[in-house]
């Protein structure tokens, strides 16, 4: 068997392991393409079939690239890149005739592994990455040692990985990270669900269809009650008659928030490609990575394109204090005309009422007591959407209620604004944290009451209290909730599955907060403890020097072990003989390395006749022990040791001549 016959399957295995995580994302034809070509490559190596010639390979390459271009269009995103790599990986086993080709293919496998890391950044992928590196490294060892066994290569690969681990940890923590990016991150064309800066009717109910995770929050201490979990994201002031717009507002002065019931938590926010961060009502501190605005929203300078971790403290009972007149004016603004019936209703409520609380109560009472329905599929609204909703359809989701409520408040001269965010979340049974999904998206209203500041009013709670107490699935009519939310029908099995999923989530979040959250800010605060400041130019240099210093230290330890003088295997007879030879060497009779015992005895007799009889006795004994065959007793060796100990040559008569 030619050596490469055994290597083609190994390399194909490494490529398959590296590409496996991509399999679900790649177009199916690429999966078939790889499977077909690899199958042919493996069989060709096994049975010595002809490999395709140069023209055939060039043709296949062109076909593959053409196919990838058709599949991915002109966008050169991460998926297209992974697709091209997969096309190449499919072809590679056909041209692995030389050592060089095989080495390059192994490198390709490593490279494919890293592309999958950019797609899935989670614990499962980390573990899979370890496996994939193990496989590819064993294949690399196999390429350089085709004679060895596969199990041996796997073992060595594991040992090398284990030995590299301490160095990896050192580099991971100390290698200086950067803020921002080197050359910018390409825009993903594909839209992700989440809030945009426009809140129109039907926007939130769309988001409910997705069970994607928006963020996860880990609380220090107990998780607050579900009905208090209002995760604030955007505050809308501007209403154009149909939808609410977010616009950057001129900053107003802001006092520190007063309140009680603090809750401290860390949020791991999934990338949503917008600038706002989510926080529990109301955040009292601003994290290093974002700014706190006067409407108590958090905004970053750049968009959130990677998973972000930040720690916050919120006050759950608060008083925002007096409102700035500019904000008050904005919170009362309405379009010139439109929705006349609603305006009339609001004006009627406001007539002769001093306390705006009464207006709020009147509006909530209307929603609660009239035949309003909370539904995911509201009918289309007419040209005057608020009127149409309040007086005709009366069916809507939270954004309908929030919009209409805020409109009514403004029309009754009560300052109001709409807040977009999430409400609730799934609490994990194994840890103090909450997973908030897109399906928890919510919109509510804040009104300004003199003396109390901005106060949260949630009209959805009036129409569907279950939405706030138990979640979306409980509040909707049977059959209306998306499948993933209506889990109850699976019964006992489903409960077990939920328990497993919660456990896995708990591990994942722990890993996520600890590992994936490590970035420039975390490194900065870690290194500050040992006196390295990353913000000055010296910081990164010091961190690198520290990292390489530690690595050099470890390497030195290794190196000393490697270069230790090889010890002869423990053999008492040989050791005793060696000490005998050392004694003779001290008096100028050095044994040549190749010199056998009898020849040495002759030389001793020749040069130091006075030592002859003693030395010959010892050497004869040695020969007997060494070459005398079986049956060397302990006592015999002991006697040999004694006679060597007694042997004390002196320098009295120096060796003749020479």
């Amino acid at each position: 068997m030619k050596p490469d016959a055994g290597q083609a399957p190994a390399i194909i295995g490494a490529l398959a392991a590296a590409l496996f995580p991509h399999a679900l994302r790649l177009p199916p034809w690429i999966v078939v393409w790889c499977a077909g070509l690899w199958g042919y490559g493996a069989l060709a190596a096994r049975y010595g079939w002809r490999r395709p010639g140069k023209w055939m390979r060039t043709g296949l390459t062109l076909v593959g690239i053409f196919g990838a271009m058709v599949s991915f269009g002109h966008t050169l995103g991460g998926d297209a890149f992974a697709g091209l790599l997969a096309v190449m990986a499919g072809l590679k086993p056909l041209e692995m005739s030389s050592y060089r080709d095989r080495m390059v293919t192994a490198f390709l496998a490593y490279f494919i592994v890293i592309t999958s890391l950019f797609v899935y950044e989670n614990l499962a992928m980390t573990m899979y990455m370890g496996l994939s590196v193990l496989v590819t490294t064993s294949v690399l060892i196999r390429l350089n040692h085709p004679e060895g066994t596969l199990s041996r290569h796997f073992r060595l690969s594991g040992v090398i990985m284990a030995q590299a681990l301490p160095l990896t940890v050192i580099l991971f923590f100390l290698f200086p990270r950067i803020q921002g990016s080197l050359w910018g991150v390409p825009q993903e064309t594909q839209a992700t669900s989440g809030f945009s800066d426009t809140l129109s009717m039907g926007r939130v109910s769309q988001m409910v269809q997705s069970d994607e995770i928006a963020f996860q929050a880990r609380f220090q201490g107990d998780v607050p009650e579900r009905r208090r979990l209002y995760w604030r994201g955007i505050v809308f002031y501007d209403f154009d008659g149909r939808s609410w717009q977010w616009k950057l507002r001129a900053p107003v002065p802001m006092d520190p928030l007063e309140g009680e019931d603090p809750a401290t938590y860390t949020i791991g926010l999934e990338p949503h490609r917008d600038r706002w961060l989510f926080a529990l009502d109301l955040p009292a501190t601003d994290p290093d990575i974002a700014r706190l605005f006067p409407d108590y929203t958090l905004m970053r300078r750049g968009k959130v394109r990677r998973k972000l971790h930040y720690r916050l403290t919120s006050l759950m009972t608060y008083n925002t204090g007096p409102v700035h007149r500019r904000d008050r004016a904005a919170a009362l603004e309405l379009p010139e005309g439109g929705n006349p019936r609603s305006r009339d209703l609001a004006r009627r409520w406001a007539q002769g009422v001093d306390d705006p609380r009464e207006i709020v109560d009147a509006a909530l009472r209307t929603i609660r007591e009239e035949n309003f329905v909370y539904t995911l599929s509201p009918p289309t609204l007419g040209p005057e959407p608020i009127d149409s909703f309040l007086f005709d359809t009366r069916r809507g989701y939270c954004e309908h209620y929030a919009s209409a409520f805020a409109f009514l408040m403004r029309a009754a001269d009560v300052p109001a604004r709409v807040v977009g965010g999430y409400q609730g979340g799934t609490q994990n049974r194994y840890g103090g944290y909450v997973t908030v999904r897109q399906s928890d998206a919510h919109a509510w209203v804040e009104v300004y009451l003199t003396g109390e500041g901005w106060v949260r009013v949630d009209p959805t709670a009036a129409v569907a209290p279950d939405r706030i107490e138990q979640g979306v699935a409980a509040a909707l009519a049977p059959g209306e909730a998306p499948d993933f939310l209506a889990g109850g029908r699976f019964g006992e099995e489903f409960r077990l599955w939920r328990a497993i999923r919660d456990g896995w989530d708990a591990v994942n979040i722990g890993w996520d907060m600890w590992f994936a959250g490590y970035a420039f800010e975390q490194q900065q605060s870690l290194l500050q403890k040992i006196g390295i400041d990353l913000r000055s130019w010296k910081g990164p240099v010091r961190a690198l020097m520290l990292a390489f210093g530690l690595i050099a230290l470890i390497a030195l330890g290794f190196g000393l072990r490697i270069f230790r003088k090889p010890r002869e295997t423990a053999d008492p007879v040989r050791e005793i003989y060696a000490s005998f030879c050392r004694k003779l060497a001290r008096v100028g009779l050095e044994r040549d390395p190749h010199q056998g015992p009898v020849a040495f005895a002759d030389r001793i007799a020749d040069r130091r006749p006075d030592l002859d009889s003693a030395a010959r006795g010892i050497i004869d004994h040695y020969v007997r022990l060494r070459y005398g065959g079986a049956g060397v007793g302990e006592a015999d060796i002991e006697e040999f040791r004694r006679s060597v100990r007694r042997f004390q040559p002196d320098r009295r008569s120096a060796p003749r001549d020479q």
Partner: protein
Amino acid sequence: MEWSPFKRIVRKFGKTPPVLSFPAALHRRNVYVLPTRFGLLFIAVLTAMLLGALNYNNNLGFLLTFLLGSMTFVSILYTVRNLSGLTVLSVRSRPVFAGETAAFKFVARAAEPVRPAIRFNFPEAPEIQQDLPAGTDAMVVLKRAASVRGVLRPGMLTISTRYPLGLFRSWARLNLPAECLVYPRPLPGPLVLTDGPSQTGEEGTRPMGPGSEDFQGLRPYQPGDPLQHISWKTYSQGQGLFTKRFTAQRGAAVELDWARLGEKDPEDRLSRLCHMVLDAHRRHLLYGLRLPGVEVAPDWGEAHKHECLRALARYGRPEDRP
């Protein structure tokens, strides 16, 4: 010649170190290590990975890059360890005729652990790769074409390894006293004989008998003497091993003489003589060899044949060490 610091460094490193004596050990002063071209390529791939991880702030990317980088680093130590503690104990080679392939047999020993994928090579000769077991002696056979008569010195022995990952190569160059005697290439032709110095008489070819009838006497056994000529009788009497001497013709020692050959080229003459020595040996002649300045007294047997061939191989090459 232009002055070039690079060439000077190359010359300094390329110069032949003194000939070593056995056992020749590999240790930290004679084992070097440098990345292979695949190592350089891999470092480039790792750099690209690192830049990608930095740009996207991808912690898993960092983890993989640092893991692979650390493994590359660890592999250097493995590569160096694979050579260090290796000892070449001896080298032997049997004489060959020019045009044949010389085989150098090295005995090497490795301290623990096993040394996989060790490569041995001489300049301009194919490389061989083999595993060396730990603690015991292993035989390594390196072949090299022997095209020219004389003493073949294969040059520096390079012992190298790329194990385990092929990203780094460590090597040591040993100047070992390896040499192989290369006899002249036998050139067929008539067997031109001259009568030995003990007799005078006519010259020319003689008919050769089987050479086993005429018992001449006994002489001590030499390795290579045919078994059927051993005097078992004396051996059974406890007098030691002796070989019975026969001659084709009593006292008819012949001489193979350089001066009697007509070839112009001295190498051709040596080749002719080589063939004649082999011929004479095959015919069990009692023959001697006469070269300008060199004379081998008539004798016969395996040892004598090699003595004659040795004289032919060494002829005119005083610079060759004995």
